[in-house]
């Protein structure tokens, strides 16, 4: 059992509170991703679990053991850093075995563990090289290898792919996913990239300003976000938001030429302001010369195209179009969508209306 439990975890730097009483349960063997914009406290939270940051108040338990005041080394965790943090003056082999060697493990045993980790990550050819002579992807593999060698209960990843180029990032993402299946240890992964979060996670934790906004499986968050922030953060391109006004059980959208949208949720009274969210994937363009909505720019990616629309209210809308059915820039269009796919949010609290 090596689940991680946070109980009202709080972090303060002087008078500034950056983590506000986080409660979280991560199951044994789960791949949990912390995601959020920069400065939301996701890395701080990870470092609190690692023991690199002191926990100001609250409890952290790993595998049922209270580790709030335990040294990082005794928590049974291993961490992979964004900057790799390899020891630059040691070879790959020494890097991976250094921790064990310094803790008095017999040489043969260290060599065996290092060999095993190297095999999992296919590092065999690089063992005698210094980190300087490796590419970014290889370095990150070594850093992961060093974590594996420690044989931890919990793996912690702090934005491990941020320093890699786009192509390598995809490769490493697949590799980390494979590693999780192979080792089956609990993994906690911090990223600001929602694509990484969606593809890797069993459970996503969306953070904002030191608060948990929502916890759930990737598809749960995508299909059923609790609030506007989560709805906007999960999904690529992000959800379009438009201001609307309630009118007799429907919502009038000035941005779409005062179109009325049928809502299947409990709306506030007439005249109340609500925010309507529409995913780009659920919208369809229809040419209409009388419409005030104009295609501004089209990004054609081959399989799909993203059309950026200018609306009369100045709100921008992104539409994902499949195939060759593309409107030229400057064309007047209207939007066609299934009202059931629209989400409604309270404009002031940003909470989802259900």
């Amino acid at each position: 059992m090596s689940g991680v439990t946070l109980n009202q975890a709080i972090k303060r730097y002087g008078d500034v509170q950056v983590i506000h009483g986080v409660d979280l349960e991560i199951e044994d063997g789960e791949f949990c991703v912390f995601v959020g914009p920069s400065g939301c406290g996701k890395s701080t939270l990870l470092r609190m679990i690692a023991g690199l940051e002191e926990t100001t108040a609250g409890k952290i338990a790993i595998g049922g053991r209270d580790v709030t005041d335990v040294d990082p080394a005794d928590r049974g965790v291993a961490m992979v850093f964004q900057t790799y943090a390899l020891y630059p003056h040691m070879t790959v082999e020494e890097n991976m075995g250094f921790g064990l060697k310094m803790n008095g493990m017999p040489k043969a045993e260290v060599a065996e563990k290092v060999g095993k980790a190297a095999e999992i990550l296919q590092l065999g050819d690089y063992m005698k090289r210094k980190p300087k002579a490796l590419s970014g992807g290889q370095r990150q593999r070594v850093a992961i290898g060093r974590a594996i060698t420690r044989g931890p209960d919990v793996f912690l990843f702090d934005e491990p792919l941020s320093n890699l180029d786009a192509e390598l990032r995809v490769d490493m993402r697949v590799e980390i996913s494979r590693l999780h299946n192979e080792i089956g240890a609990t993994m906690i992964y911090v990223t600001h990239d929602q694509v990484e979060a969606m593809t890797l996670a069993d459970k996503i934790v969306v953070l904002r300003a030191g608060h948990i906004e929502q916890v759930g499986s990737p598809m749960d968050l995508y299909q059923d976000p609790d609030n506007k922030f989560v709805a906007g953060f999960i999904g690529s391109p992000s959800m379009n938001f438009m201001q609307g006004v309630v009118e007799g059980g429907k919502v009038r959208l000035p941005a779409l030429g005062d179109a009325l949208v049928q809502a299947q949720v409990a709306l506030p009274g007439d005249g109340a302001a609500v925010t309507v969210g529409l995913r780009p994937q659920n919208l369809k363009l229809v040419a209409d010369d009388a419409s005030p909505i104009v295609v501004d720019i089209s990004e054609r990616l081959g399989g799909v195209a993203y059309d950026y629309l200018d609306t009369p209210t100045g709100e921008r809308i992104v539409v994902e179009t499949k195939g060759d059915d593309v409107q030229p820039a400057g064309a007047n269009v209207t939007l066609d969508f299934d009202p059931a796919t629209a989400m409604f949010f309270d404009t002031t609290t940003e909470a989802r209306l259900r």
Partner: protein
Amino acid sequence: MNKARRNPFNVAASHAILLTYTVIALFPVFVILINSFKTRKAIFREPLAFPDADSFSLIGYQTVMKQGDFFQYFQNSMIVTVASLFFVLLFGAMAAFALAEYRFKGNTLMGLYLALGIMIPIRIGTVAILELMVSTGLVNTLWALILVYTAQGLPLAVFILSEFMRQVSDDLKNAGRIDGLSEYTIFFRLVLPLVRPAMATVAVFNMIPIWNDLWFPLILAPAEEVKTLTLGSQVFIGQFVTDWNAVLSALSMAILPVMVLYVIFSRQLIRGITSGAVK
């Protein structure tokens, strides 16, 4: 490469300036060396001439070898310099690590206090130091010199090294902590190897003043068995008569060990001075 560097006139000019400077800098050393191999008369007749068959003489070196215990002086200087450097580097690096790495009350104040030593010359405290050494019974021991030089070198060492240690990535140290390394292991095995160029810089900056110092050996350790090389050479300089052959020979020999140490540190030194200047 930019235009200025390709222009042959600029290249010639910069080389001329550098060569001139080299000649000026090396000239005194050169004069000492050639004259140490000449007879006393030849030194005064033609100070700038090379020793020839007529004027060549090893009399200076012979006097030095006979007079006093020259190897003893040599050894004393070596012990004092190396031991002082060792302590300056060890304690300087440890203090710098603490200042750079740990957040504690009075961290900045402590840093400023240590930096004060750079601005206030240690010689101001000579009388107090002498009293201290007398009452602790350290007068006329090499320890007196080693302790004073260590104190003299520490402020600059802490200042330079803490700056370099701040540049060592936090992730690296944290990786070590998660790997279960003690703070001492992190310091000795991870951080020290990475600030080696800075250590060499500090070593060179401290080494030469210590080796050449006359003031403290004269005051704190003038006894025959603890004389340093610089102090030992003074026996040849009298108020009325100076044995120039011996003085020049002694000085020539005193250059050697410093040069050897410098060569050892110099490759690191250059990296230490230029790092940070170029990315």
